[in-house]
């Protein structure tokens, strides 16, 4: 898309969002979909540009993740994000993939975002460069905000080089021992008995690391149970004794994929009040994704 075409698409998205009445945004529906029985809008889709030497990409928030990853792969690059759905949905939900240990959380991929506010205006947050501290970090406010503060229209994301030689392994060794002795594994998964390790890098290094950790090559990670918990990584050891049910825990990170729903988390009233004030400032009439409570989502 040309610059003017992107701007037109963003403007027309803003017009669709409008200035009043409840409205919800949808992508591919892979992360829960829109709020039911509310007027639905769809963000612009399409890749605006890729700048491999900048390690950045600009695209509409409605662009499928798959499309973006395929286009970046042609330049030997990728994003530190999980598969599936649209870029906007992935960011609005804010959950990272199983490579978070090595690649970092999805929130760190967003450099700039334009979003449509509750007033129907196009607002820019952040900036196009990989390093930027100009103004408050509204981009990070938007990631994980479930579309309750504004709807993402288009974004500039930071890319990373494609892995040069990723390989999955398993080991019977204690996962924390592996976390200590291996050099920056991309992922360390543990089901209470077996540890899965994802390593990337030069072949000779992988051989040396595999010896160091008594690692055995396998085809891939274990299947992940459907529910998701967020625990301090220091508490993962207690999973085998205190919490029944099959699980796969991300060691060093704290995400637990479990068969059972997570416990409800008590929210500090001060944090709740601050959420209320932010929501009120950004969406005083509560028209954006009405009924979604970001503090109730587990």
């Amino acid at each position, binding site marked *: 898309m040309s610059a003017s075409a992107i701007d037109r698409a963003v403007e027309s998205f803003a017009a669709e969002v409008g200035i009043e009445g409840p409205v919800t945004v949808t992508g591919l529906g892979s992360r829960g979909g829109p709020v039911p029985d509310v007027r639905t809008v769809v963000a612009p889709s399409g890749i605006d540009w890729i*700048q*491999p030497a*900048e*390690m950045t990409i600009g695209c509409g928030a409605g662009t499928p993740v798959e499309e973006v990853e395929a286009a970046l792969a042609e330049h030997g*690059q990728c994003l530190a994000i999980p598969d599936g759905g649209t870029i906007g949905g992935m960011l609005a939900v*804010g959950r*990272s993939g199983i490579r978070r240990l090595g690649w970092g959380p999805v929130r*760190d991929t967003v450099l700039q975002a334009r979003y449509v*506010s509750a007033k129907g205006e196009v607002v*820019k947050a952040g*900036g*196009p*460069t990989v*390093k*930027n*501290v*100009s*103004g*408050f*970090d*509204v981009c*990070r*406010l938007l*990631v*994980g*905000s479930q579309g309750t503060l504004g709807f993402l229209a288009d974004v500039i994301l930071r890319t*990373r*080089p*494609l892995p040069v030689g990723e390989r999955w392994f398993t080991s019977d060794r204690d996962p*924390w021992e592996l976390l*200590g002795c291996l*050099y920056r594994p991309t992922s360390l998964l543990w089901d209470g008995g077996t540890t899965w390790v994802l390593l990337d*890098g*030069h*072949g*000779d*290094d992988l051989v*040396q*690391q595999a010896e160091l950790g008594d690692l055995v090559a396998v085809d891939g990670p274990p299947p992940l149970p459907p529910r*998701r918990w*967020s625990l*301090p*990584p*220091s508490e993962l050891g207690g999973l085998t004794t205190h919490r029944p049910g099959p699980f796969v825990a991300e060691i060093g*990170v*704290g*995400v637990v994929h479990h068969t059972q729903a997570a416990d409800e*988390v008590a*929210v*500090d009233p*001060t*944090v709740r009040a*601050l959420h209320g*004030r*932010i929501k009120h*400032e*950004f969406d005083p009439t509560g028209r954006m994704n009405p009924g979604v409570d*970001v*503090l109730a*989502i587990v």
Partner: protein
Amino acid sequence: MTTPLVARLRQRLRPDQVRDGAAEVSLYRRDASNLSGHPAVVCFAESTGDVQAIIQVANEFDVSFVPRGSGTGLAGGAVPPTGSIVVATSKMNRIISVDPVNRMAWVEPGVLNLDLSTQIAHLGVHFAPDPSSQQTCSIGGNVANNSGGPHCLADGVTSAHIHAIEVVLPDGSVTVLAGEDPEPTGYDLRGVFVGSEGMFGVATKVCVKLTQNAPDVATMLLDFADVADGAQLVSDIIADGIVPAAVEMMDQLCLRAVEEFIHAGLPVDQAAALLIEVVGLPASVASQIERIRELATNRNVGTIRVAADDAERALLWKGRKSAFGAIARIKPNYYLHDTVVPRHKLPEVLASVYEIASRHELLVLNVFHAGDGNLHPLLVYDAREPGAVERVHAAGDEIVRVSVAAGGVLSGEHGIGLEKRDLMPLMFSEVDLAAQSDLRRAFDPKMLSNPDKVLPSPAGCGDIHSVPEGAWV
């Protein structure tokens, strides 16, 4: 005479923590920028309770306050508003706990950046953000400014290294933003607080991410007869899929100043040098060095010097990090700028920087984070020369404008503070700025926490780069 404000603060804290003597207060009038203000009183907090007490008093008296770490900020972010309370956190300098297995630590905001890494070095980990001021800057200041440093190219700036923050909000309430767990429910208030330049409250404890030390490190110095070749190599390396731990550039004037200062055998006859560091496992490091050599050859590199040992590596880094000390040999004063441009625009923007400096009859040294496109032009001058200060400001203003026009941003790591507050409209529309202002109001409805920074007042939008009231250049 003791004012009611000071008397009340002395009731809430120990009297010796509250200083209002003219000489002491004057020490806190400025940070490392050349802006200054007039605080009413300086309070030395020693605990979260102290910070809370100070902020409660500020609310009682409807007086603004400004959090302060080491005062090394370069954009006037810690310059106190007239009549304000300075909340100095320098005495809150304990490392509270370290979890070397899961690689996180809780620290107080006054812990110095380098002290943290030094004290945990035996555990094989470090705190990755490494601003050039790291010997003196505090973690709390790093959080407020979302500080960077040479090694943020691969590992990201401060925001990527903060798990959670205990804060005293501007209304005096205490809470923890985010947590040790990876996906706390709700908005990313941690991410929003980082880089808020003291305007969203005061950080009282910080949970930082610790980064595993690399088993192998290679540091190389490459020199070029043409600055543009060096700048272009930076893009070539990244486009090739290599993200070094650091890529720093020094131009000839800088190389000469530093060489006279530290005698490291720097290539003083060349136009520029790149300091590149690659870290990781041995085979990966070796193959990346080899590939960088090939790419550099295609860009007419002069000599390539690879540090033979830790001592030589330390010497090369000392050259980079002591650049600001070395320039005192050229002229007594300097003004350091901080903008970011897309990497591929480096050659063009650098050429503009030289042209601007020359037109204003100023000397400019460039020493900067080339890998991030983060420029740090240093304008050196003698403030005693008539008109020099005015020329420095005019040139600086042009450099910022050229950077933004090239698709860049106002600041890469120093922040906006007072210095660039009135330049914000170069990057953001009124609607964009209103959203930032809304966020600020949600955290601080009474606007008591470090007011008048970052966001231009609406009336000032057409009056770009005026000198803020209560501060002078």
